[in-house]
């Protein structure tokens, strides 16, 4: 699946999909200046609680409330990892699929997620896109 960007080409290697991990994915309501491994299970998953369908956890001392969100029907979530980092914008880049997911937990600060939240609404885009790109019937 090559994607053109200026004159270089970024290739996404999909062959790794079958070996890809299927971790539990969490979307947090903050920006963490970190890109790499983290002790998610020890510090986060292990402390998440679910009571009467309400998921709660805390991150850096702040209370979060969560909800499970499924990827749109027919779609799979991919986490890509750079295999080869281009040293200039002329050089091609290669990405591989490191993990796949079909659902994730979406966390909000203090308040429970609702259907008005961006990420939850975004999941309906493929359906909307299908509708607006479908041929017109008389």
């Amino acid at each position: 699946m090559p994607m053109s960007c200026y004159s270089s080409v970024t290739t996404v290697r999909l062959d790794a999909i079958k070996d890809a991990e299927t971790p539990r994915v969490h979307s947090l309501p903050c920006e963490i200046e970190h890109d790499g491994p983290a002790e998610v299970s020890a510090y986060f998953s292990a402390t998440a609680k679910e009571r009467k369908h309400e998921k709660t956890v805390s991150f850096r001392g702040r209370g979060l409330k969560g909800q499970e969100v499924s990827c749109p029907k027919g779609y799979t979530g991919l986490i890509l990892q750079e295999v080869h980092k281009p040293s200039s914008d002329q050089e091609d880049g290669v990405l591989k699929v490191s993990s796949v997911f079909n659902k994730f937990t979406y966390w909000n600060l203090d308040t429970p997620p609702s259907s008005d939240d961006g990420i939850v609404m975004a999941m309906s885009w493929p359906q909307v896109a299908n509708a607006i790109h479908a041929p017109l019937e008389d």
Partner: protein
Amino acid sequence: MDLSQFEADNSVSCRLTSPIPETCKTEDCCLGIDEAGRGPVLGPMVYGICFCPVSRKEQLKELKVADSKTLREDQRESLFLKLDEAKNFVGWALQILSPNTISTSMLQRTKYNLNALSHDAAIGLVQYALDSGVQLKEVFVDTVGPAAKYQETLSKRFPGVEVTVRPKADSLFPIVSAASICAKTWTRTTALDTRTVSFYPKTKSWLLRHLDPVFGYPQFVRFSWSTAQTLLESKAVPVHWDDDEEDGDKAAARQNNTSMLSYFSRGDSSGSNTHTHRFFTERKLQNLSSL
């Protein structure tokens, strides 16, 4: 004592109670309130109440409850057992505020400070005693904050009960000493039972050594304490929340990732500057043209 509720979920706030003595439901009673574990950056904070009939205050003195600060830990524990033995006329209840409760309350979007948190815990316990049928006439409270205002709040909240708020009340009124013994015994017990750090000295070096760059600390640390916050700010990776009060320019730059200079650059030939419809921005959807 059954700690199972707290052990099952030590991230919340939990209440432990003794049975209510029958005499407390028929006779006029006094009640003392004290707190323990307010200061440390680790472990729970415990609010304790102890109550008995006004007519039996003297008997409480005979148990030799004294200001719990002047007691050794083993003395405190044996006094707690004595109080528990006097269950035909002495009742008690505790509210254990876990460190996670303290952190998440204080770091809410709408700030909930420690004073409000502890006042609410105290009010909740007094209300519990009233709801259980205790004939409350006198309430004595130990406080570290301004006494007069707190006394006024409590008096208004509990009409018909004579409220006395006093600094160092635990050395003045035996019923407050008794509450203090209950609270102090349980800060230690719960801290030990949850296998948190049972020693408070050298906390700072412990915090320094056990800092995870992403998550910071386990949940028994009070993240809202300045000791923890200072270390997180200097040693952990930065985390930005949408309600952070940061420097305007810096925040804007981070959120948009655009500098002024970008307006002078040639930009994407497809014209990335065309306005994206609200439908997409609200859903945080973006066109992907490069990875």
